[in-house]
């Protein structure tokens, strides 16, 4: 068992987690001239290095925004209400990954073969009826919601379902605020999924969603590029930056090619992104500052956009699940707090703190509540909300921010040289980059270069505090089977057939798929039936790695 060792400490190589070498102290000479220009603008002005809004958290504290969901739609509804009652200020719906990621109903053989897993990672929602149960009693007109649909091919279904529930409640979609995610990083990089549409078909679906929101839901954030899932798979801080913006230009270039949407509106639609913050506090805070400046620069230089109202990147942060340890799990409360602090120092607009039982299970109710409490303590007790960009002007942080910007652009350019972001997903190049870092991280842990308390060092045979983790989901699968049968029995079969034909025709043609998707959800079309259409029209992605 390793303990503190003075010799090892003195031999320690001081560098950031992205392996940017660190000096013992920094001075004015470490801030490059071009970076001083960025630093000259106050918060709320381009290039937004110092913050997206002039008054920062004084005008609006960050949104407390936790992923939540498991079991039956009723279970997820109960957990969302629990979190909102404890002070969460937005909610994120999780859909069961067995069904949602693959667009399978519960009676698909691949799901039946693992029926016990169903409902473990989100509620099973196979139709608009299930989504309505999940949202029952939640005032979505006044509470910012994340409809789920983190996965590109699932987003049309999840969003159309959420919006259909809103319409049935008599809400005006034009006034509805919220987000989905509809992003590549999760299932094309982080947890590679075989049964999903190819990347180019995904691009088409996502730009359709952008256009649809532009026309009908102007307050909705249609897609949210989730660098988090790249970073937690292994990409380092500047690789996360480079790949996120390489992803963004796929969308913006496609919008430009179609010519169907104003570029400023498109920039705003893509300008809500999701980053990870891990344990290197200063590097992560610097990364968020760098991200805002890079986004501003990209819009200006590549698309000639100058309207600052659409150029301020809004950032959601999730603290690194992979930084949470299985061993001595209560230590993770400290980790969640520190990673959350990094996000706040970097000026994030919303935050989810991973549960202290993250490495054991989906969050228990207590761990979930703790994630909310950590954020409330940061907001209310620490005074971090009083001053915008409190790290701004630090020689170290500015030097690091400038480094991350230039290394981020280098990585961006490397992706462009290899054919762009989607090509780098198809070819497995990004997976290989992540894999290099995964291995380096494990080697550093084994060799003693990297210490993780309670894991590599300061290990205890008998943990002083054990937690159970989440205990299970009960009858999610059985109830989902019953509801699927009931759906088939009680819906208008003819209307379902018509709606599916329309979805099929839209997918085959060039028109936007979302109107047909809205009609399909309205007609009680099920998740798996949408999946069947996608599989027939688009086929499956050819995965670059075995997963």
């Amino acid at each position, binding site marked *: 068992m390793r303990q503190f060792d003075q010799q090892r400490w003195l031999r320690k190589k001081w560098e950031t987690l992205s392996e940017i070498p660190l000096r013992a102290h920094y001075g004015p000479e470490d801030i490059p001239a071009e970076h001083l220009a960025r630093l000259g603008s106050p918060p709320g002005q381009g290039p937004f290095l110092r913050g997206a809004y002039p008054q920062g958290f004084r005008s609006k504290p960050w949104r407390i925004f936790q992923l939540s969901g498991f079991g039956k739609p009723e279970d997820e509804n109960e957990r969302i209400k629990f979190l909102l009652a404890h002070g969460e200020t937005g909610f994120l719906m999780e859909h069961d990954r067995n069904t949602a990621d693959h667009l399978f109903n519960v009676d698909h053989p*691949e799901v039946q073969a693992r029926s016990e897993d169903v409902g473990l990672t989100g509620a099973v929602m196979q139709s608009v009826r299930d989504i309505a149960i999940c949202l029952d009693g939640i005032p979505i007109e006044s509470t910012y919601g994340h409809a789920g649909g983190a996965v590109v091919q699932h987003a049309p279904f999840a969003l159309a379902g959420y919006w259909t529930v809103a319409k049935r409640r008599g809400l005006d979609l034009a006034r509805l605020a919220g987000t989905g995610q509809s992003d590549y990083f999760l299932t094309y990089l982080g947890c590679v999924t075989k049964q999903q549409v190819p990347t180019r078909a995904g691009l088409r679906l996502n730009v359709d969603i952008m256009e649809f929101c532009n026309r009908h839901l102007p307050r909705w954030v249609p897609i949210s590029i989730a660098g988090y899932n790249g970073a937690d798979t292994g990409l380092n801080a500047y690789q996360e930056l480079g790949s996120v913006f390489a992803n963004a230009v796929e969308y913006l270039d496609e919008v430009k090619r179609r010519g169907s949407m104003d570029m400023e509106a498109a920039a705003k639609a893509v300008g809500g992104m999701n980053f990870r913050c891990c344990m290197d506090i200063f590097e992560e805070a610097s990364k968020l500052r760098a991200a805002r400046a890079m986004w501003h620069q990209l819009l200006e230089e590549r698309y000639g956009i100058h309207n600052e109202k659409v150029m301020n990147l809004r950032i959601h942060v999730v603290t690194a699940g992979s930084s949470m340890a299985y061993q001595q799990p209560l230590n993770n409360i400290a980790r969640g707090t520190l990673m959350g602090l990094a996000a706040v120092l970097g000026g994030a607009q919303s935050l989810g703190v991973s549960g202290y039982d993250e490495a054991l299970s989906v969050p228990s109710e207590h761990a979930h509540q703790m994630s909310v409490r950590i954020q409330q303590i940061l907001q209310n007790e620490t005074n971090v909300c009083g001053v915008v960009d409190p790290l701004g002007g630090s020689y170290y942080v500015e030097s690091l921010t400038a480094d991350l910007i230039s290394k981020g652009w280098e990585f961006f350019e490397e992706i462009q040289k290899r054919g762009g972001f989607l090509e780098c997903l198809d070819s497995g190049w990004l997976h290989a980059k992540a894999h290099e870092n995964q291995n380096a991280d494990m080697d550093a842990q084994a060799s003693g270069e990297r210490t993780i308390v309670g894991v590599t060092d300061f290990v205890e045979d008998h943990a002083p505090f054990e937690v159970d983790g989440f205990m299970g989901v009960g009858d999610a699968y059985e109830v989902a089977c019953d509801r699927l049968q009931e759906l088939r029995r009680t819906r208008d079969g003819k209307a379902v057939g018509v709606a599916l034909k329309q979805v099929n025709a839209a997918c085959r043609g060039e028109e936007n798929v979302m109107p047909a998707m809205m009609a399909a959800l309205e007609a009680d079309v099920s998740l798996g039936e949408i999946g069947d259409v996608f599989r027939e029209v688009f086929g499956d992605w050819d995965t670059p790695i075995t997963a």
Partner: protein
Amino acid sequence: MNQQRRILLAKTGLDGHWRGPSVVAKALRDGGFEVIMIGMTTVDEIVQAALDEDVDLVGLSIGGHIEVAERAVLALREAGIDRPVFAGGVVPPWARKRLEAQGVEVYPPGSQLPDIVAAARRLTGLSVAQ
């Protein structure tokens, strides 16, 4: 007994998180094993692959629930495959105990690769010291 040992690595769930199995696979290959990765597979497919590939050890990557992993172990035994099984992934302590009762060695998050390679050596009848 100097023949290269063969290890099957499979994922029991419909969740493709690959970071765990990929670092384990690389470490095992670097440690001299032949690793056959079959990704997301059903219990039947795991049994079939273990038979076809005549492996010395089966590794299961488990994301969360363990009932499918428990069924996989039972199915391997019913098919007459008496090779050892080890597992990794997000496995809460209560679930870990259940798998261990089935004779499965469990390596939760935070397990170090040299320990996993040493376990593979021991479980396939090689001396632990390389």
